[in-house]
């Protein structure tokens, strides 16, 4: 039986007080609730503080390059649809370096789940603006404030009719756990943007800042109402909604191969026929 213990205990390289710890707790709780044996799960990640997360869970890991968690996850799922595939990385990794893959993965709607630790900053490289850093917010490298409008991943995903679009908060582990469970169960691409305080480099969007603003979306929100979803996705100021903003009934990317490619041997007879066609 799969229990939280199945996923192990690790020493981390995170700062004390970082929101990443709670996200890890929620991920483990969700995997446990889903009853997934560790060896049937693969986490793909990029590079950053968030991207270290899969090293701290007993699962299969593909910790690749900065920005590239989604294409790796896509390749894994295409090669073996029997695996449950999650991509876990930071906001910089997922929406900055990896922006083009974000768009393509939403368009593909392949059955993987992306958990984005959104601390609105580049943590590992010590505090540059990330795509989600609000315009005007000062950092060491943006002394006059971030010059560009912040990227709103949820609004873009909703507009693009992404499979499943949700926002979580590391300060609400129970709620986040539920989101992850639902996201993994959703057949298609699921995005969970998780607000996560970075105690070392983001002195604006702190735990208290998020705590004060975040509220759980209630029953009244209909995640199949695109206009409502978009309105909630745009709400990021005095109030920030948590929950499933949008769910689409778009079919997931497919068809996926009927068996894992690893056990598929080349059909020499078919090949002989093909070669004969070149005569």
């Amino acid at each position, binding site marked *: 039986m799969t229990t939280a213990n199945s996923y192990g205990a690790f020493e981390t390289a995170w700062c004390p007080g970082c929101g990443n710890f709670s996200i890890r707790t929620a991920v483990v709780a969700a995997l446990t609730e889903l009853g997934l044996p560790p060896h049937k799960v693969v986490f793909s990640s990029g590079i950053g503080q968030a991207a270290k997360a899969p*090293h701290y869970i007993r699962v299969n*890991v593909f910790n690749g*390059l900065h920005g590239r968690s989604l294409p790796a996850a896509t390749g894994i799922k295409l090669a073996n649809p029997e695996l449950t595939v999650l991509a876990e990385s930071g906001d910089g990794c997922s929406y900055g370096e990896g922006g083009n893959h974000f768009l393509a993965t939403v368009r593909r709607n392949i059955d993987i789940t992306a958990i984005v630790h959104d601390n609105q900053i580049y943590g590992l490289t010590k505090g540059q603006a990330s795509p989600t850093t609000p315009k005007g917010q000062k950092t060491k490298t943006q002394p006059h404030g971030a010059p560009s409008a912040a990227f709103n991943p949820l609004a873009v995903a909703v507009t693009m009719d992404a499979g499943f679009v949700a926002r979580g908060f590391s300060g609400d582990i129970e709620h986040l756990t539920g989101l992850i469970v639902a996201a993994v169960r959703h057949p298609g691409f699921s995005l969970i943007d998780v607000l996560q305080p970075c105690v070392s480099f983001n002195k604006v969007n702190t735990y208290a800042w998020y705590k004060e603003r975040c509220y759980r979306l209630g029953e009244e929100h209909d995640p199949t109402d695109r206009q409502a979803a978009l309105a909630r996705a745009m709400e990021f100021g005095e109030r920030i909604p948590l929950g499933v903003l949008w769910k689409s009934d778009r079919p997931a990317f497919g068809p996926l191969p009927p068996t894992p490619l690893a056990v598929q041997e080349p059909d020499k007879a*078919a090949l002989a026929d*093909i070669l004969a066609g070149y*005569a």
Partner: protein
Amino acid sequence: MAAVSVNIVIGGAAGQGLVTVGEFLARALIRAGYAIVVTQDYQSRVRGGHNTFAIRLDPERVSAPTDSIDLLVALSAETLSIHRSKLSARALVLADAATGLDGAPGLGIPYKNLCPKPLYENMAALGVLGALLCLDPAWITGLIREKFAHKGEAVIAANLAVFAAAMDWTAAQNAAFACPAPPAKTGSRLMLNGNEALALGALAAGVNFCSFYPMTPGTSVVQTIIDQADAMGVVVEQAEDEIAAIIMALGASSAGARPLVSTAGGGFALMVEGVSLAGMLETPVVVVVAQRPGPATGLPTRTEQADLDLVLYAGHGEFPRAIFAPGDLSQCFHLAYRAVDTAERFQSPVFVLTDQFLADSLRDVAPFDLTALPPVVRPLTHVDDTAGYERYAVTPSGVSPRLLPGFTEGLVVLDSDEHTPDGHLTEDLAVRVTMQDKRLRKADGLAQAALPPDVYGDPAGATLLACWGSTLGAALEAAEVLRERGEAACVLHFSQVWPLVPDAFLPTLAAARRTVMVEGNCAGQLARLIRRETGFVFNALVRRYDGLPFTAAFILDRLTEAGQ
């Protein structure tokens, strides 16, 4: 062969159907038993411009294109003016009677009379060519029936009629063109271009995943795979960019797929970080790099051999790799196959360097014996003790048992950071050295497995023409010409350009009287790599970088110029 071969060049604008005529004739010639080499010269545009499709045929064997033209099919007026200077002494120009021959020897073809509609001009051209080549019309009429089978009898009949009329008309002209000798080849031969052969070799080796972003001349490898994907169970996905293409391939590979990625230099440049990742993750991937002239966009539809250094050093940090460079169709097939096996065996990135010339060069080849292919190494889907399983277990060979995620309870952890044997990131600098040494030890195995260069002819006291990749054919013909001229000559062809094993070729080089490296680039990239690895310095370097493939005449001219 230079004396008896016939070089047919069909020229015209893109979209005028020259490729249709060329492919029909090429296939008919192969079926008839001729050896052929096709060279396709085209521009980076979809319609217009001026392109050529050249078929060099020979009753026995032919390995390379030639510049001198024996039959010039001019579909546009431009064709004649561009190619006039290359007509051989016996050449005929076959132009539309309406345009005229402008004084050139040849036939003005009355397309208007022969064809009920302009659509049929291709058939008329085929009829004229068939007659001049004394080709049994059955080879072409059979093809016409095959190709138009799905269009119904009426269409077939109409095409056959035009073809027959054109043959008859030609016969009546009594043109002064000597038929080539009857063909010597027997038994079925395949017609493939280099990229088709590469793709089929990869499929034979079990490639079942292909992520790509289109780029000429790399795309046709992918297109061939796509065309057979359903039959062969291949997952193909067009990626959003080349970065995604190689990363998807690595993801798939990590889960047990056997991936192939194909691109050209510019797309490959974007994969350089991914190549380094493959080195660190020790995850197999085969990358075909089809070269074209650079820098940057350069000449997108022409040929060059200038990306050897790029492919050799692509990726930050140090890790082993292998690079194959096929010289003909058979090598395309077998080296693509071997590339897949090498990647799996050494859990490393492996490259196949080809180029536009070879990619597009249709040729005849004996059918491949699929049953004779050695088995390809496969990852494990089972280990006895999953508890202690470590993806990067330190071994004498540097190769660790590769388990796949999901098949056992053993966890497979791959990490782009420096890592402990279990795949988790580490900052332990002693472990760093252990792991780097482990990875680099795979270079020994790769060297042991490396193919030695092939020697064609006797090097003793000879002029040795060294080359790699697609230059093989022209070098072989140049050596033959030298021998015909009474000069000892041989060819040393590197079908694998990395790793280089000096003992495998230094004695050959030492035996030669003079050594000449023939490369399609400016720097002499392989020549200087050989100097780096062995100290050996070639006596001369013949380079070409105008976008066209080598010919024997080009090589011999340069040798003469250099006073060699």
